């Protein structure tokens, strides 16, 4: 079957037609012929399919809040064609069986490429290395390793992990949080935590770990990826490390590009997230860090939680926000519409570079002839009053309810398969359900 996308602005540039056959882009230009399916994309921007380096799909173990299928659908709705499923499931993805299970369920769902992330340490306990080699050589071919949710706090273990993962060509994605500096921490330590009487999560707990880790990366010659950095000081440390030539990449989440800690004022647990929402100065610094390339990518840290874990006191509530469906709109709102970056940059920070960090094939030459047909068509002129009704996953813990957000994902193609059509998720026949 062939499909032609007509008059899409290629990454914000000139309009062109894109012809898709057998899951590949076979022509881009003005005279690409006819096709079985034609899509009028005038006014829409064509981006390469988005790649999320940081997704919690909750399966196995947390199926009441998300499954690999429901999370895959949420990802497609947000314009993603690949997600990295974090390892903090139950059981933990610290061995080949679990990562292969996640990988296979992703294939069965069929909406996006699900790339399992392997744990760095057994059971995320921070004590002994997980089965890193076995996961790297499994069917899932894991390349990203992370104890996300927890920090690899022990310096010796982090050194060994960097060296050992480098042996297999992978990368460690560190959740930078000094455990001792953040005992019982509930929110950013600052004026708001002082007033609310909530235990503070001080910025130095993140910055000190990043500083240690970039030095360990330099010393070992290994690659390091820093998850969801949230403070102005973290941006400075990464900038310094890159100037020294250290092999470090960094990510920021959409929520840290927009929201601030004063939202905790009423103890609404929807705003409880780890790392916590910071101050306006931090938001500005993180935005500038993305704009100048210090921060390489935006990743969602999509963290579904059922209502019971948010319908309670702040301290009892779980950390985390869903973010797959809203990510592109938040990036447009915080970075594109503010003039900090263009759409080609969006393609870089949300597709090409996260794919490179995660060693995901098929994204190195976006929207060109011969590449996989992973394509997201977004209407940048649309506006949406955000709410739970815009979500496609199983949980509704979005912090953006009530905000008027720009941009809307109109179509998503995953290897040529239409996963989102006219803003609605296409019902695929599930291999697993067939």
């Amino acid at each position, binding site marked *: 079957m062939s499909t032609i996308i007509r008059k899409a602005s290629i990454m914000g540039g000139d309009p062109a037609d894109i012809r898709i056959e057998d899951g590949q882009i076979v022509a881009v230009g003005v005279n690409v012929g006819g096709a079985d399916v034609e899509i009028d994309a005038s006014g829409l921007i064509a981006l390469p399919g988005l790649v999320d380096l940081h997704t919690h799909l909750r399966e196995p173990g947390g199926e009441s809040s998300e499954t690999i299928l429901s999370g895959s659908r949420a990802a497609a709705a947000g314009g993603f064609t690949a997600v990295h499923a974090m390892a903090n499931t139950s059981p933990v993805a610290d061995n080949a069986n679990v990562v292969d299970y996640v990988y296979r369920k992703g294939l069965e769902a069929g909406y996006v490429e699900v790339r399992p992330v392997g744990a760095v340490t057994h059971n995320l306990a921070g004590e002994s290395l997980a089965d890193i080699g076995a996961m790297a050589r499994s069917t899932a071919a894991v390349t990203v390793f992370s104890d996300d949710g927890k920090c690899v706090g022990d310096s010796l273990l982090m050194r060994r992990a960097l060296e050992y993962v480098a042996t297999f060509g992978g990368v460690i994605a560190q959740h930078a949080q000094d455990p001792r500096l953040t005992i019982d921490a*509930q929110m950013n*330590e*600052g*004026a708001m*935590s*002082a*007033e*609310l*009487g*909530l*235990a*503070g999560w*001080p910025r130095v707990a993140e910055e000190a770990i990043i500083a240690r880790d970039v030095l360990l990366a330099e010393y070992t010659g290994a690659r390091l990826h820093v998850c969801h950095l949230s403070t102005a000081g973290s941006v400075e440390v990464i900038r310094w490390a890159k100037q020294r030539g250290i092999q470090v990449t960094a990510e920021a989440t959409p929520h840290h590009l927009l929201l601030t800690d004063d939202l905790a004022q*009423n*103890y*609404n647990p929807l705003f409880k997230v780890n790392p916590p929402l910071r101050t306006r100065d931090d938001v500005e610094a993180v935005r500038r860090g993305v704009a100048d390339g210090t921060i390489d990518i935006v990743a969602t840290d999509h963290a579904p939680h059922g209502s*019971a874990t948010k*319908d*309670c*006191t*702040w*301290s*009892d509530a779980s950390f985390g926000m869903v973010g797959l469906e809203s990510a592109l709109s938040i990036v447009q709102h915080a970075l594109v519409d503010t003039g900090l970056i263009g759409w080609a940059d969006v393609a870089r920070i949300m597709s090409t570079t996260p794919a490179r960090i995660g060693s995901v094939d098929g994204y190195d030459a976006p929207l060109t002839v011969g590449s996989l047909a992973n394509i997201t068509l977004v209407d940048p002129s649309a506006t949406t009053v955000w709410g739970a009704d815009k979500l496609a996953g199983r949980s509704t813990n979005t912090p953006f309810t009530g905000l008027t957000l720009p941009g809307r994902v109109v179509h998503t193609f995953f290897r040529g398969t239409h996963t989102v059509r006219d803003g609605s998720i296409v019902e695929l026949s599930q291999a697993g359900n067939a």
Partner: protein
Amino acid sequence: MKHFISTRGIDSATAIRLLDTTADMADVRQRDVKKLPTLRGKTVANVFFEDSTRTRLSFEAAALALSADVSTFTSKGSSVSKGESLKDTVQTLESMGADFIVLRHCDSGAAATLAQSGWINAHVINAGDGTHEHPTQALLDAYTLRSRLFGDSARGRNLAGVRIVIVGDILHSRVARSNVWLLATLGAHVTLVAPRTLMPRDIAAWPVAIVHTLDEALDEGVDAVMTLRIQKERMNDAFFPDAAEYTRFWGMTTARFDAVRANTLVMHPGPMNRGLEIAGSIADSANSTVRDQVSHGVAARMAVLYTLLGEDAS
């Protein structure tokens, strides 16, 4: 007001009205018949997720003095660890007829969450939430100060120009937070004293002066010193080295007491660690307000119940 969650945001006129109502209730408690019929037929549910016998008894006495029916729910530790959520607990109590929920909870913000959640329609009174606020304690403290300083001419007055030092574990103290907002609204000059480890960061916007040793604060001349209870386990978390050193720099010792003006009041919310944050002889002295505070606690809590009930009538 529908709920009583925090002293922050209470305006000056409302604060003075609450103090005057407290005075009315204190008068009732001096009469032969120490009860008012105000809450007859109403139920006050004391919901205590944290041990506090004295606060619970004070609220019970206040509710009984207003002729309310009282039910009490106590549960140690976090609600989640007990398997039943705060939401389920309070909905159960409301279904049993509670018109007022008096909530003591180990989590900061628990009372605010309850008031805003839509889970219940009952009035919510914060009886202490984590390290956030303890607003009835602040009300009774302000009332105690006002009546001790101004006696029979106290009614209708604020605390303009009154100099108050609050010393101790400000970081973890809900009593300190509630007092800061209420005393500042009433026009008092508040000085907070603590080692840097026990002082919250980034409080430049608070309406207080901040110093780090008690001697420095007392040198300025004060009308009242409020000593806070220090949790001994803070020593294990490296907030300060040991009890002796705490007392040396932040304790209300007899030497310090002898050096301040003879009529300086010494307050303590209780329960006291005698010899640690306050010398026993000071606690028992004529300058001590400790027993007044306990007595006024019942009147202040009556005033809050009375004021919230007024909301239903209006």
